[in-house]
């Protein structure tokens, strides 16, 4: 070795400050959203079209009084959240199959933060979509009587539901073998609102279907949103709604974590 050592001191990468990875991944997922506007537009347009269909085409038959739009909005809000969150399954499955998660795993960061990024971006995206859907509903005759506090409670419950169903879709994305498969599995979840009190009162259904509709998670959530928006007494259904959201959220987070370790852990 000569007297002049030109070697720069190669140093270890620093430990990331808290939340740097998470905020970087949220930014990444939001950029994905901006890059695929068609997906976002479809996720908003489809529920809006369904709302217009139910209000103007079927609504007269279901509720001849013309008040059907007031009945259907809570269900449409949940339907919209489902459509919006479904894309997370495809995003997560793509990340796993392209190998980009493997690159993150060789870096000194929590690789599962990439899922956190997708979930937070989905929450932001879907709250905007919810606001748009409610605005359109008001345009076609929806007349909510909620107080500011009830609006806040409504959006908080919708946010909790979005979070829970997004994590469920993230787990489906991890469980699926490809983005296409993730899309297919996710589709099944989107049928849940139809067998609930979203579009027709539960007591109009055949008895066996009533039982399913009564006890599936969406019905208490829809009933709570409906009560909040129309200024009715919320009653004990709110606890059922919150409990369902919490159970789905905790279960889905646990399932996501377990699947992430299996799909993106050391082999």
């Amino acid at each position, binding site marked *: 070795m000569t007297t002049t050592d030109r070697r720069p001191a190669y140093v*270890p990468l620093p430990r990331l400050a808290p939340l740097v990875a998470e905020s970087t991944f949220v930014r990444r997922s939001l950029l994905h959203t901006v890059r695929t506007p068609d997906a976002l537009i479809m996720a908003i347009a489809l529920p809006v079209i369904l709302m217009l269909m139910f209000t103007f085409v079927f609504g007269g038959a279901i509720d001849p009084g013309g008040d059907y739009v007031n009945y259907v909005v809570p269900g449409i809000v949940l339907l919209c959240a489902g459509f919006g969150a479904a894309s997370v399954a495809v995003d997560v499955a793509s990340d796993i199959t392209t190998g980009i998660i*493997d690159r993150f795993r*060789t870096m000194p960061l929590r690789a599962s933060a990439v899922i956190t990024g997708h979930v937070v971006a989905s929450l932001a995206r879907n709250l905007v979509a919810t606001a748009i859907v409610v605005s359109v509903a008001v345009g076609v005759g929806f007349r909510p009587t909620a107080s500011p506090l009830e609006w806040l409670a409504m959006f908080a419950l919708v946010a909790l539901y979005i979070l829970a169903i997004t994590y469920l879709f993230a787990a489906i994305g991890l469980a699926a073998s490809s983005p296409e498969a993730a899309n297919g599995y996710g589709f099944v979840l989107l049928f849940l609102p139809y067998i609930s009190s979203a579009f027709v009162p539960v007591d109009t259904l055949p008895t066996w279907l009533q039982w399913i509709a009564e006890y599936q998670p969406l019905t208490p959530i829809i009933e709570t949103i409906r009560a909040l928006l129309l200024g009715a007494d919320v009653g004990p259904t709110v606890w059922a709604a919150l409990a369902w959201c919490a159970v789905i959220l905790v279960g889905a987070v646990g399932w996501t974590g377990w699947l992430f370790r299996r799909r993106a852990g050391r*082999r």
Partner: protein
Amino acid sequence: MTSTITLSGVGKSFRGVRVLDGLDLAVPRGSVFALLGPNGAGKTTIINILSTLVAPDAGTAIVAGFDVVRDAEEVRRRISVTGQSAAVDEMLTGEENLRMMARLSGLGRVQAVERSRELLAQFDLEGAARTRVGAYSGGMRRRIDLAISLLRTPPVVFLDEPTTGLDTRSRQELWRIIRRLAVGGATILLTTQYLEEADQLADRIAVLDHGRIVAEGTPAELKARIGGEVLSVHDAAGAVLRDIPIDGSIQGLRDALATVGTADATSVSLRSPSLDDVFLAVTGQPAPARTDAELIDSKG
């Protein structure tokens, strides 16, 4: 000489198939070390173990003083990896990919922007900076992938078949970058199927075949193992029919010529041994011929 990378008795099987079989390897600090072998020899598995993606079934692997299993987090702070399948975000532009990875590597916002600009220029991607990576050609994807892995230079750099799919000009540019990294003091472990590449770049080469190291040494040592000269036998059209290693003596040349049939062979030439000859000598089989199809889906 201290070793930056040490593998002792490392074994790994996937679904009952033994990929690595009691592998020992030591890579000296600040050197360029090439793992040379055909597809399926276990090259990528070694990189995956060293970069904490895969746990070995047996043995220990130490990188920059830390065990890859027990101290994975510390290892990850000291390595950079470029894999075979260019792991980049196709929905983002080249510039956005670099900035994201820069932030994840601990650079501040302003530094991330500056460093990304430097690398886009260095890898001749300035014109495509605002284009989505999904629309890049194969060579451009390789270059952005490499640029990402060079955002920061940690003490150890793994390059898994870095020049596969690159054109000659990009390959030479990458070789220049690798040499500069080595001069800078980084320890570089690269895998390659290109024998010429190992010869050009590496201080030491290990020849890998079926999960075992069948030969190791400097390029000169490996070449010396097969003797002084190679007798190439050509047909009338000039195509090489056979390569016969000879020891450089007249008797050796006579013996070699005696084995050549005269049916097709019309001419001979003498040349220095290449690493292809080394491969043949140590594995008993010719180095695999590379076709374009293999270059695309090589997952060795």
